[in-house]
């Protein structure tokens, strides 16, 4: 309810003269979306849940004194994978609410009549969603510090988490916005996005003892989430140089290019009111 009132206040129709001088339209939308996300309490609440999950994982890993050095690296890897996966999940959920949520709350119309291009609206919403990922990453820093400093991989883990997580977050947030734009119902958009991430994350949870042939390798390389998490493992557990196994980052980068490209190309066409859209 808070969000609805806030959104309506912020997105009241205004003419071109209302645009702040020297600021791009997408920047205005981004600023308002970020404020909406954080001042409404959605962002802080999601971060709180995120921190509770990280606390549980970190405490379990740090209290197990039987872990050897390699297993401690695996614990750092587990924590970082967890932070990236859940951080990307909340980013995806927020972006999946971006267009369909506005449509369902009846605030998309007022947003569309502002003197901001539809690409600007999309860019602003993407930035707002990514602010959640960056906040999630900042929250995960002290947890990574607790586990990683003992095994001397703190800076490597943080840089990897930021770079790899941001790539995956941009790709998944773009996909979330695409799903949100084509779905009439917000529930459908959220469910489809969460299901998509579940499908992409599931292969990382398969037991390592399962027979894994070339087909499994191809599937893993094609999966942007599993592939990115595998890259983290090669770096943190196996101690590979960052230039090794870069093939794991191909599909995350391709996802950014394809989903981002689709948003740029088709965004203006799919970000629109739909008949019966308000009814969901």
């Amino acid at each position, binding site marked *: 309810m808070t969000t609805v009132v806030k959104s309506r206040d912020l997105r009241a129709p205004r003419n071109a003269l209302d645009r702040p001088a020297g600021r791009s339209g997408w920047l205005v939308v981004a600023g308002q979306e970020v404020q909406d996300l954080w001042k409404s309490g959605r962002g802080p609440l999601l971060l709180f849940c995120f921190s509770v999950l990280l606390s549980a994982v970190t405490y379990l890993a740090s209290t197990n004194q039987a872990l050897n050095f*390699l297993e401690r690296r695996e614990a750092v890897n587990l924590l970082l994978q967890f932070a990236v996966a859940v951080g990307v999940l909340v980013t995806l959920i927020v972006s999946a609410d971006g267009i369909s949520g506005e449509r369902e709350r009846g605030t998309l119309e007022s947003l569309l009549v502002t003197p901001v291009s539809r690409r600007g609206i999309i860019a602003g919403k993407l930035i707002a969603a990514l602010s959640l990922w960056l906040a999630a990453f900042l929250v995960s820093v002290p947890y990574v510090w607790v586990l990683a400093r003992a095994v001397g991989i703190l800076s490597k883990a943080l840089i990897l988490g930021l770079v790899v997580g941001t790539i995956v977050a941009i790709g998944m947030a773009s996909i979330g916005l695409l799903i949100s734009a084509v779905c009439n119902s917000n529930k459908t958009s959220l469910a489809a996005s969460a299901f998509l991430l579940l499908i992409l994350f599931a292969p990382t949870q398969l037991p390592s003892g399962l027979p894994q042939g070339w087909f499994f390798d191809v599937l893993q390389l094609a999966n942007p989430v599993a592939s990115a998490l595998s890259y983290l493992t090669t770096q943190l557990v196996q101690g590979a140089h960052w230039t090794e196994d870069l093939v794991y980052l191909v599909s995350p980068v391709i996802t950014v290019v394809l989903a981002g490209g689709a948003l740029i190309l088709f965004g203006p066409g799919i970000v629109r009111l739909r008949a019966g859209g308000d009814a969901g």
Partner: protein
Amino acid sequence: MTRGILLTVILISLLMLTPAAAVASPVGVTVAPDRSDVSTVLGGRFTLKTEVTNTGSVPTGVLLAHLNVASVQGDIYVDPEDWSPARSQEFSLQPGDSRMLSWEIQAVNSGKFAAYVVVLPFGEEVAGTEELVVSPLVKLDVAPRSTVSAGLALPVVVLIPLALGATAAVTLIRARRRT
């Protein structure tokens, strides 16, 4: 006399028919590590080299060199796969030849350990009775590093959710008041 000769011949024949000794001829190689001890810290990586030489007069056939790590103090559980992911190497040597084998090792436990390389015959023709050739032990002294403790983790895992929870609660209350 004739009976004595006959008994001797029978006895010799029986001895010749006796099965071969339980241990067959050794592989005929020597294994020498490039050092006798290594001092490192937990997580440290080092390369151990062992030179295998064929001291016999015949080719060795296919041999397998296998690295192992064992704890020599306390009851530390050692999983050699953690220490070195590639612990087996196949090779063969002509008489007089030698081969330098490198082993990439990472110390994943702290304490006192020993690494050694064992050479054994490899392939379908292995009878199972051949002697093994083992290198001298290489002492590994791994110094501990600061490890994670619950005491250090506790403030982080408690304070951060508390702070974020309080922030979320205040933000939600303010947002409700605004509406």
